[in-house]
């Protein structure tokens, strides 16, 4: 009995009378702890840890994705910038070509007009010159008639005209 172990020499650990009691309560305790742990505590803590691991993995993945998206956005930005630059260059070139073409047409047109005006002017100068020489011949004939009249020489009109014309043609001689 338990009281027997009260002697100073006795070890209560070796009091076999208490063994059934200890073993019974130990088994009850272990079963209760096992139930609490396996039904409630361990699944709960396991799910918390799994959830945390999942969250961390998901966050790292999300960060990876955002980083890739940022890189892609930067590449797209640079590409857009290059495209815009190329397009601007092309538009400038096109405009320059258009203007050049317009300019060429205008210059050609102006040249043609100048040529036409020049021809007209030359024709009119020629006309003036012709009418001027006709007038000189007239004046020369009349003057010759008058001179001959003053000197009392009767001369035929036709002869005078012919002489003046001949003189004028070889005027320079």
């Amino acid at each position: 009995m338990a009281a027997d172990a009260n002697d100073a020499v006795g070890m209560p650990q070796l009091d076999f009378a208490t063994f059934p009691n200890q073993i019974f309560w130990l088994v009850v305790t272990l079963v209760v702890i096992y139930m609490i742990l396996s039904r409630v505590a361990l699944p709960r803590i396991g799910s918390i840890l799994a959830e945390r691991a999942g969250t961390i993995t998901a966050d790292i993945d999300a960060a990876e994705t955002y980083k890739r998206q940022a890189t892609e956005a930067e590449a797209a930005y640079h590409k857009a910038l290059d495209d815009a630059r190329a397009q601007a260059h092309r538009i400038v070139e096109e405009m320059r070509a258009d203007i050049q073409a317009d300019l060429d047409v205008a210059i050609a047109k102006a040249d043609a007009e100048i040529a036409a005006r020049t021809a007209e002017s030359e024709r009119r100068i020629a006309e003036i010159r012709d009418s001027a020489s006709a007038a000189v011949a007239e004046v020369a004939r009349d003057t010759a008639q008058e001179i001959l009249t003053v000197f009392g020489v009767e001369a035929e009109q036709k002869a005078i005209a012919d002489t003046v014309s001949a003189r004028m043609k070889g005027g320079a001689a």
Partner: protein
Amino acid sequence: MAEANGGLNIRPMDQFRVEPLFGGDYVGMFTITNVTLWMALTVLAVTLIMVVGARGRALVPTRSQSVAEVAYSFIYRMIEDVAGRDGVRFFPYIMTLFMFVLFANLLGLIPWAFTTTSHIAVTAVLALAVFITVTVLGFVLNGAAFLRLFWVDSAPLALRPILALIELISYFVRPVSHSIRLAGAMMAGHAVAKVFAGFAAALGAAFFIPVLAVTALYALELLVAVIQAYVFTILTCVYLKDALHPHH
């Protein structure tokens, strides 16, 4: 109590007595004793730490949740590292053993507490449960090949029968050392603490010397309480490994 008697009438073993809580001397199988009380408190402590502590299910753990998570991860990794990945299915059983031994040891350090794990009856049941489970499991999983555990292939042929005999003896000594190690460590520490406390009462003016000794011893006992729980659990994992992978 021993201290009250004065002199050197120290009875360090009295603290280990199993006594009925509600009077009488008779300790039957179902009597509610101090064993019942301290085992119930162990269940309560385990529940507080493992269930109540983690009830927040916080993604960023609170302090109490961290304790539960650390205990969980610690034992889980121990099984994985020692017994291998297929040992993980025994996690709830090993966790039960660890939590019981750890909290029984720690609660026993409370003054006037009864240390359930200081009794060979308790630790022997724990060790035998491990021993029988592991042995049955070894034969169920490996059949007769489990006996190769005792046949050291790497040794010279002539030595193998001798080694087999030694291995066999050491195998059957396992539950004895497994249980006496824990009960002995607990009993010795508590008994020594009691003896020093008795000295403090007897020495009068020089009482502070044993009090300092008890304080130092108490810190050591705290360490021993945790380490013995750890040792008990890791040995269980080692034995489990032998059942799962009986090849050297």
